[in-house]
């Protein structure tokens, strides 16, 4: 038997590996969406699945996002585990009524009689020179909805392990894949079917002076910033939130108790973002540990610019370093 370790895996390939693993081990797992079957998805996340698992389990839908969101609900009530792909997060909004008013509520409103083990996958975020409506980060919309989990992987390993966990989870998960890092890095991934925990932050780097809290594609810039800060003698702890809702406040508060300083980094607009919830939770739970105000490095409160200006919108390594210098100075 060959080693389960697969080398040089990109994040999007890890998504594909996790889907293939789980479909191979659980015949209730169904993949549906636009262009997911014959074409293997516009990002190739579902490539090869139709050949391996057949046309009944890998379904090209009509071009209708409300339908994709709602059909998955009906399937789920019959004991299937649908993994529904929205081609881009910018097109998920037509499905929001189904996700919010039904998928998120089904267990509660039937008192556990029916439930929705659905994964709604969508590539999200900017940075790939995509057309209008293809680059937003609106995870906060879903993080506000009770009954949903919102999960964002930031590496090939975490994409693999968190997607397995999301599919196995008996409740709906909005799984947002940062497409800016779909192919930015390659890692070795153990294709052994082992899931990673949901509702848990991942401490990617330990440090004593400042806590950097982030998720998704911004993990990349945040780790680079931590490297630069280390050269300046600043020891930064880097936490990948991973499950942005429900939030693992415990890990965040423990880190703040140690460092006393926090910078939150996210690509989404600042106001009403998940960073605001994290900042409020830290203010409520660790105020006396703080030696400086919590600072956010985020996208601007505006419409995602078209791609000629998207780099000006996105948080950069220098922005993070400057923010840390600001909180360290206090």
């Amino acid at each position, binding site marked *: 038997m060959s080693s389960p370790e697969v080398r040089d895996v990109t994040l999007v390939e890890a998504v594909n590996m996790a889907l293939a693993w789980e479909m191979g081990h659980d015949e209730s797992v169904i993949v549906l969406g636009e262009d997911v079957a014959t074409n293997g998805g516009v990002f190739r996340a579902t490539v090869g699945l139709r050949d391996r698992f057949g046309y009944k389990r890998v379904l090209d839908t009509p071009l209708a996002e409300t339908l994709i969101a709602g059909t998955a609900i009906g399937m789920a009530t019959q004991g299937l585990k649908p993994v529904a792909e929205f081609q881009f997060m910018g097109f998920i909004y037509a499905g929001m009524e189904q996700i919010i008013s039904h998928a998120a509520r089904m267990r*509660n409103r039937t008192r556990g009689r*029916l439930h929705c083990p659905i994964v709604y996958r969508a590539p999200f975020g900017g940075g790939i020179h995509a057309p209008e409506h293809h680059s937003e980060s609106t995870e906060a919309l879903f993080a506000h909805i009770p009954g949903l989990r919102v999960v964002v992987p930031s590496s090939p390993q975490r994409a693999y392990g968190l997607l397995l966990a999301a599919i196995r989870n*008996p409740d709906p998960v909005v799984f947002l894949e940062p497409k800016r890092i779909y192919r930015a890095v390659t890692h070795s991934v153990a294709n052994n079917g082992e899931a990673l925990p949901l509702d848990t932050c991942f401490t990617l780097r330990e440090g004593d002076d400042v806590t950097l809290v982030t998720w998704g594609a911004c993990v990349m810039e945040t780790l680079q910033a931590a490297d630069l800060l280390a050269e300046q003698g600043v020891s930064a702890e880097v936490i990948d939130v991973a499950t942005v809702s429900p939030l693992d406040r415990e890990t965040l508060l423990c880190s703040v108790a140690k460092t006393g300083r926090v910078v939150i980094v996210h690509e989404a607009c600042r106001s009403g973002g998940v960073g605001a919830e994290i900042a409020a939770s830290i203010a409520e739970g660790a105020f006396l540990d703080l030696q400086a105000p919590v600072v956010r490095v985020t996208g601007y409160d505006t419409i995602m610019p078209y791609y000629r200006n998207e780099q000006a919108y996105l948080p950069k390594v220098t922005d993070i370093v400057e923010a840390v210098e600001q909180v360290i100075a206090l």
Partner: protein
Amino acid sequence: MRKSQEFHVDSTRYLDELGKPLDDLPAQASDIERVVSAYRNMVLTRTFDAKAIALQRTGKCGTYPSVLGHEVIGTAIGQSLAPSDVFVPYYRDQAAHILRGVSLCELLLYWGGDERGSAWKHCPEDLPIAVPIATQCCHAVGVASAIRIRDEARAVVCCVGDGGTSKGDFLESINLAGAWHLPVVFVVINNQWAISTPRSVQSGADTLAQKAIGVGLPGHIVDGNDYFATIEALDTALERARGGKGGSIIEAVTYRLGDHTTADDATRYRTAEALKKAWEADGIKRLQNYLHQNGLWDANKEQALQAECKSTVDAAVEAYLATEPESPTAMLDYLFESVPASLQQQRERLAGKSDGGES
């Protein structure tokens, strides 16, 4: 110019408004026990409905949508569905729910503000009542997809109102049913009104059934106050669906005899004459007349049935009113399979409050 396609929509009616056959009746008419049992369910539904409205008017139930005028359609749906089929309702399907095994107490709990009203024990796969218009249509095609994926000889009935046919959810769902040959029967209950908006405003199409044609499904119109027309159409459509021959749309034409809900006042937008005319077509009276005319019913049986329905409803009301509210912690307990760590603190706060303690 050559004609490339031709379409038609059939329409069925067997009984006139006085219950007299207009034509040879379908095979369903010879199943006397089923016909009488349909009548009994219609009367029970109407008795329940009047009581639910009275409970709302006296502050003992929340906003409630009267089923008046829908009893025949719901009863036919309930009778035509097999226990292994799946029912995907909207919110005015009381007659069908009763036949599916939903208790009257559960219906009262739902409209009386208690989630346990949807924890149906006797039809565990049926979808709960859908309030957001037409959203249930997508669930129906999802259920039907699961049935097709597993090659099962089961089918789905999905109800939607005339207003609901204007929504994308309905149109996207019937489109999928046609494209994927799904075993789902959409029953468009055309009661002429979406709150105050008349049927004519919803669509320029002459019939709602013809929307089926554009998505590759057969469409059929029935007089929704004619039990025989409605049950025949449903039996046929469901048999077709279970046999792998695909879905269909039945437009069941009726009239909403009540207000939209207890929060509505229909006198603001419709005339007394129109309502009076609609009452003349009432399907329950029509079936009762038919039963009388054929020696299958009499005044004694009617009296006994009325008394039985009253006592059944009274018992349900008693059980409903005696049901204590759930613990407030239930609002978190059923959100996910288990309460996430991040919600434990909120749960403790609720538990403290429900015990009368300080948080």
